[in-house]
């Protein structure tokens, strides 16, 4: 994997070999990240993509919302190995409870805002990740699966079916709990309060890391020019 370093010159102007990437003004797509495929990739505002993360637009377009963190060694829109989107339609077809909008041949992969994808997680083509979801290391989200907003997929779990809003999937993927119960008013408030604290902390982390990575990228390009 390390051999295939593309080393693009600028984050704002993708070269001709790379897919068309639309970036928000304040978004940092690290030059060390891998971008491939032919379909369009859209990134929202203030999103951070770590070096060595892979954005794959082979199977279809990729859309990532605002204020997300995509950590290193993540694969978004995979699998990488196959050139044809053979995996995509199969997954999209059985994702009956999901968005259902991805019936066409190129499979769209959507990550909504404030999603935190940890290192080495795989989000396969056709998956939909809603707002403020946490995806922990070594998680695989199968094609066509919709992960509800504020859900958390704990480390190592493979998600092969839709996940409710505010759900936590842990253990071997067979354990699930609801962070917020619908009937309980005070509980809903509590869960939202704690979630706000978590998102605040995540924003802080993202801003800090972004500053460091931006500086590192700048230093690297300067060194190359010399």
């Amino acid at each position, binding site marked *: 994997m390390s051999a295939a370093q593309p080393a693009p010159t600028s984050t704002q102007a993708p070269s001709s070999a790379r897919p068309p990437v639309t970036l928000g003004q304040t978004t940092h797509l690290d030059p060390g990240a891998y971008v491939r495929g032919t379909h369009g990739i859209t990134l929202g505002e203030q999103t951070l993509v770590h070096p060595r993360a892979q954005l794959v637009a082979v199977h279809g377009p990729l859309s990532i919302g605002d204020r997300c963190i995509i950590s290193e060694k993540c694969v978004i829109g995979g699998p990488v190995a196959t050139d044809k989107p053979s995996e995509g339609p199969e997954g999209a077809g059985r994702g009956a409870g999901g968005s259902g909008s991805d019936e066409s041949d190129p499979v769209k992969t959507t990550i909504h805002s404030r999603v935190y994808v940890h290192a080495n997680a795989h989000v396969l083509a056709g998956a939909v990740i809603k707002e403020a979801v946490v995806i922990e290391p070594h998680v695989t989200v199968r094609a066509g699966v919709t992960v509800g907003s504020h859900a958390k997929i704990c480390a190592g779990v493979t998600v092969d079916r839709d996940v409710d809003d505010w759900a936590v999937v842990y253990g071997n993927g067979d354990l699930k*709990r*609801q962070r917020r119960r619908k009937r309980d008013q005070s509980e809903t408030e509590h*869960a939202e309060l*704690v979630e706000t604290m978590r998102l605040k902390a995540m924003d802080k982390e993202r801003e800090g890391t972004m500053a460091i990575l931006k500086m590192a990228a700048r230093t690297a390009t300067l060194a190359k020019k010399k």
Partner: protein
Amino acid sequence: MALPFPYIYISCPCSDASRRALTSKRSSRDVDIDRAMQDDEDTFDPRHPRSAFSLFPPEHLLYCEECHEIKCPRCVTEEINATYCPDCLFESPKVMVRGELNRCPRNCFHCPICTSQMITTSIGDPKSGPFVLNCNYCMWNTLDVGIKFDKAIGIRGQVDEMANGGKQRPATLKSPYSGQAEPARKSSLSQTPLSPGHQDEAPDAMDRSVPGAPLDATARFNALRAFYKEQITDSSATDASFPTSALDMAYSSPSSLQRIMNIYTNRDSSAKRSRQKLTIMREARTSSEGFILTTESTKVSSPSIDYDETTTASQRAFQHPSFIGNPDAVKVSELRPMPTLMRTKRSKRCATCKHILTRPDLKISSARYRIKLIALNYIPFVTIKPLPVPGGLLAPVPDGADVVLAPGKPVQFIMTLRNPLFDDASVSLGCPSVTPGRHGHRVTILCPQFRIGKNSDAWDDALNNPPDRGTLNPAAGGEQIAGKLYDQGRNWASVVLEIVPASIVRQQSAELDEDEDVIEIPIRVRLEWTVTDLDAGLERRKRDKGLDDGEDVDDGKRELSYWMVVGIGRVAC
């Protein structure tokens, strides 16, 4: 067995009862000879049901320098040096531990949902709170059960005083941690017959059903106990043979045993007594006496609980004991965060001579040992691999696949013994020509007696010897001649072990016992060496033990023999 092939187990000599009796008089030479003869006579059978209790991986064994014996976990005694919390690494003084119910008295808690460690976080101002305990794994927090804290320290004390929902726990319940540890130590005998039933209801359901006296499980236990004690006191006034002390009866005391035996032997009188008692004693009736109607609580808790809101068996098990957690929780909202269980640092002593075998560093944050006499520093480390011949077995791969041997076909293995001692040792290996058990596999050790060099400095060895010595030389070494070593190095020697597996014949219907096809070879290892650096050794022992054993004349001769079991592989069948 659990280990991949080939594996080595060592049988601790303590399993041999006759031997244990003899070793106490180890000064006598005759006894030693007797022992050796007796040991040679009966071959150790690794398949004997008893053997499973004496076989240990060599890494688990210790060595006593006083008794010159291998020591297994069964022949050591343990003593607690320190009790500490594994999460915050604070040590609790011994006198406090019991009052703290063996759990961290500070801020350490574990999640009742997923059991991972919880952290204290602020949900308001970072300094002044309020604070909650939050599980970073499953995102459960104490707000889910309506608990938040005013201070970020002393969480344990705050949790103990709070019921789920944030209300103060009833005043009758002094938190067990603040001094009242009795319920934990009660013997089952001292519990009144009704008391087990009281645990069956959820305390919070009871809170609602009996508004006047909101007692929780612990308080109710105490109320019931007090009530029945009173009842017994009253009834014992008329029945002298049933004293009040029966309530606090201890099984260990001979007088109470006598009393129990009397109850059983004089059945007539006890029957009469019980009839008598029935008329005098009454059961608890009011809630202040700890009484509660179960029907009410079931009525309250039964309507429409989501399946997602119910607790799992393991979650309930994690809530034990009942005076800290809530093992009867039906809903997840009834679960309590559990304070971290304390851990201990222990030192081990030889059970026969009290010599210290291991002693951990007293500093909690250090994982090192100050003394650790592991057996592998005294006995040779044994490795086994197939003889590299064309058509022979391949070296085992680390994936743990079984080694399968063809029946009737001789297979050679190289057994290498590495000497950890700083003195030359002479080794003799004895093994039965046919392994014990139903399927006798034929075994031959081509060179059963040899010496292995001392574990000297590796650099000395490299300087004194040409570099190619000690490595396998196909011309000179690698011989499979009886009485000759296969190969030899600075502190190691290899011998060839030949095995002819017996074929396992079975009837059509007969099933093999579990692991019946495994070839396990018992080998008697006998080591003899002379400690040359005796003064240093003695000094060290004196320092370790603070013992003056100047009169015990030590000629430095050491002798050690034990049974080793080698698991080679399976027979194809």
